[in-house]
């Protein structure tokens, strides 16, 4: 009897527990979905009435906007959750929220997507659509902006909405740039189009060491790099010239192509820009990786040579914990492979770049891919952009908040730089410096909020620690050579070719790892032939043909 009772008791408690869980879950999701549905309809009616109102009054009428309810707007950005800077960030956000509450009766909250597996976490968070996030930092080339727009993760931003709730942003972005933010006739993104930056890739290297190697003007070509590696390897025997973590295969390969052709890749289609046009013929799709065998064989040969020199570790493909950049900062690495923006940091005597304190000869040069041929393409304006989540319960207020942090000097500075006097100071030249007692571990707000989705050169205060002489010189060089990104309006419809693209991408990735790190068996000719055959089998020609068809529709 006793046993029976115990069994009964156990069973009922478990059932109760399960039932409890189940029911609470369903009710919560239920209420959630009805809520969002309700708010969606609300939004719609709001919109129409508002747009009617604004149409009546002819312009943006802030009186027509109802901000009586205090709301919290969550902004999603990539970046690690702050550790040391948390305290300072709290202060900044309190300050900022005071202003936001006063102006639009809203406050801002940051939702961090940590760098580990950021793309999948980013997409997963967007897929939730439960109002977790309102403002979404996004990018067409590195954060799946278009796939997400197509999947319905982003809200369509009507012109009326933008005019009403983000009037300054609406006015500051020229019409042709709004065109580049449209998919299927609807605006999804608010572009960071007034911010000078370059994210073309290349090698950051030690200029002083390059000079020692006899490269008096610095590294100007891939062959110069070979000379440079050899010198570093023989002179500085205790360091690995470039301790790659085995993930640079795409950048290296497309860098080689940029340096040896006038190929202009299409962003965001695949890793490593497999498809694109050429400067002479922008609208004929080609893929030099499979079409220019000779060039790829040369590449495979050179990379084998680099591998034999010992530029990276033998097991580079499993060397996931390496951090060449951190090593570079302290003088333990001869190179880092990344983009210009990273170089602007590494070439400057910032507090974290201790190499400039310990070694007064230290100097960081930059060899950009395409330097030999002058093949430089300016950044697409949607390399950074803000979108509004379709799951947002307060899209209007989200836009209003964005309009402020993008255009209001006070909010902009607070959000980007922190509190004046603690996190930054403006010196007599109007440049941004660090105040006394500044500790980048605690006060670096600029590196915490990661606001890369609407920076504004009108409000930017140049960072005094940056090596502007060198940076401006390189930017001027870029400006003299660049062409604008030509495919901004092209949002490919890949539904029918996605499986080919996946397979092509996978093949490209696998072979490029072996080729770019010189780890293949057999001769360069053999591996390139094998690679190209595998790419054909994976369907690269089908994709090229389909893209060409869509190009012809759009551009001819």
């Amino acid at each position: 009897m006793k046993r029976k009772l115990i069994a009964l008791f156990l069973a009922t408690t478990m059932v109760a527990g399960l039932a409890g869980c189940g029911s609470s879950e369903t009710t919560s999701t239920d209420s959630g979905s009805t809520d969002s549905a309700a708010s969606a309809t609300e939004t719609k009616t709001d919109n129409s009435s508002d747009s009617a109102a604004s149409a009546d009054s002819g312009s943006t009428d802030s009186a027509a906007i109802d901000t009586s309810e205090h709301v919290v707007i969550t902004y999603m950005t990539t970046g690690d959750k702050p550790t040391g800077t948390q305290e300072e960030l709290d202060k900044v956000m309190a300050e900022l929220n005071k202003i936001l509450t006063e102006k639009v009766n809203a406050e801002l909250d940051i939702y961090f997507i940590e760098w580990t597996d950021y793309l999948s976490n980013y997409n997963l968070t967007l897929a939730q659509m439960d109002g977790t996030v309102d403002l979404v930092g996004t990018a067409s080339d590195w954060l799946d902006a278009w796939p997400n727009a197509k999947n319905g993760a982003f809200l369509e931003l009507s012109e009326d909405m933008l005019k009403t709730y983000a009037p300054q942003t609406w006015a500051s972005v020229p019409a042709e740039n709004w065109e580049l933010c449209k998919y299927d006739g609807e605006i999804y993104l608010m572009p960071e189009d007034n911010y000078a930056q370059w994210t073309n890739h290349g090698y950051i290297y030690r200029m002083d060491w390059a000079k020692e190697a006899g490269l008096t003007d610095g590294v100007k070509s891939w062959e110069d790099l070979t000379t440079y590696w050899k010198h570093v390897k023989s002179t500085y025997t205790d360091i690995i010239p470039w301790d790659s973590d085995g993930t640079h295969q795409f950048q290296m390969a497309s860098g080689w192509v940029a340096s040896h052709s006038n190929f202009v890749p299409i962003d965001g289609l695949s890793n490593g820009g497999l498809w694109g046009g050429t400067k002479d013929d922008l609208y004929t799709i080609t893929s030099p990786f499979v079409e220019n065998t000779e060039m790829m064989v040369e590449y495979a040969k050179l990379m084998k040579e680099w591998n034999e020199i010992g530029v990276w570790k033998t097991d580079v493909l499993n060397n996931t914990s390496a951090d060449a950049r951190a090593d570079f900062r302290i003088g333990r690495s001869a190179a880092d492979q990344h983009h210009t923006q990273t170089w602007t940091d590494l070439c400057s005597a910032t507090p974290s770049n201790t190499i400039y304190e310990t070694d007064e000869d230290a100097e960081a040069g930059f060899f950009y891919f395409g330097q030999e041929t002058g093949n430089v393409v300016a950044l697409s304006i949607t390399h950074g952009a803000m979108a509004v989540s379709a799951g947002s319960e307060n899209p209007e207020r989200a836009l209003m908040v964005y309009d402020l942090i993008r255009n209001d000097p006070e909010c902009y500075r607070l959000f980007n730089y922190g509190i004046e006097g603690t996190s930054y100071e403006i010196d007599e030249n109007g440049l941004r410096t660090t105040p006394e007692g500044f500790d980048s571990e605690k006060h670096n707000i600029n590196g915490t909020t990661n606001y890369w989705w609407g920076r504004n050169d009108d409000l930017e205060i140049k960072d005094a620690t940056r090596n502007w002489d060198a940076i401006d010189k390189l930017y001027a060089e870029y400006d003299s050579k660049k062409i604008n990104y030509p495919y901004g309006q092209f949002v490919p419809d890949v539904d029918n070719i996605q499986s080919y693209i996946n397979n092509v991408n996978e093949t490209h990735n696998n072979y490029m790892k072996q080729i770019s790190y010189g780890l293949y068996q057999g001769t360069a000719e053999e591996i390139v032939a094998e690679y190209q055959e595998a790419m054909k089998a994976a369907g690269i020609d089908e994709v090229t043909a389909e893209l060409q068809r869509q190009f012809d529709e759009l551009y001819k």
Partner: protein
Amino acid sequence: MGKTKVKEVKPKSSLTFFQKVKRYKTLMLMCTPAILFFLAFSYAPLPGIYVAFVKYNYRDGIFGSKFVGLKNFEFLWDSGKLLDLTSNTILYNLAFIILGNVLAVFMAILLNELRCKWFKKVSQTMMFLPYFISQVLVGILVYNLLNYDYGFVNGMLTSLGREKWGPYSDPNVWPVILVIVYLWQQTGYNSVVYFASIMGIDAEIIEAAKVDGANGFQKIRYIILPSLKPTIVILLLFALGGIVKGNFGLFYNIIGSNSLLYSTTDIIETFVYRATMVDFNFSTASAVGLYQSVIGFIMVITCNWIVKKIEPDYSLF
């Protein structure tokens, strides 16, 4: 094991469903949590399989999205790797299942024969510990043991004046390494089940064998192994259901993205992970999951059918 007993007691099936419920109400009650669990987590989500057949759109949801038929399965066929991937997955799992179980039974018997109590406890714990190490750490551990430039093994080899060994560029050695790592991690855990069922063997039978003059080996051969047979068969049947589901954690953390080794180490999971990470497609991923489940289902049914032919008592259903 208990099943046979139930069968004997089972009255004629003249009882109606409700009569049965009434008669076995205590048993039913005790089963309820498990039944509810499976209803909630295995049966309720079943309609979600539909996502494998649509072009999933966040806003329209699973059932509102456009139906595209078998399109999501295409990329697996198109890759031309389906056969290689499936065979890699199955072969690895076969190795894991067979070697894993043989070793686990072996260890359980050894443990059972140990007379020194503290040694038994210590060795059992030591065997169990690796099971709790995260796969990520296992990956790092293996890398630090085996990498070419700074690895422990190569350090030993050079100090012995031997040539260095580069497993990270040699696909052929990985099946062996991976199986060893798997066994190191799982044997302790697996042997517990067998150890428990050895403990459950009627002591009288063993006594009787001893009286009849059976030595230690004969005891194992004629008493213990036959008594373990039902457990082994049931565990094998369960394991076979997952034979096309690869051990993602193990492969992903040890092999990572080293494409040099894919020819012998790429399994369905790792391939799908890489390929679908690019476009973040729930539908394709579900399609693959469905493919694996269907094959697993067929495997279980077939194996169960074979077992039933040979020894009806041991079959699952």
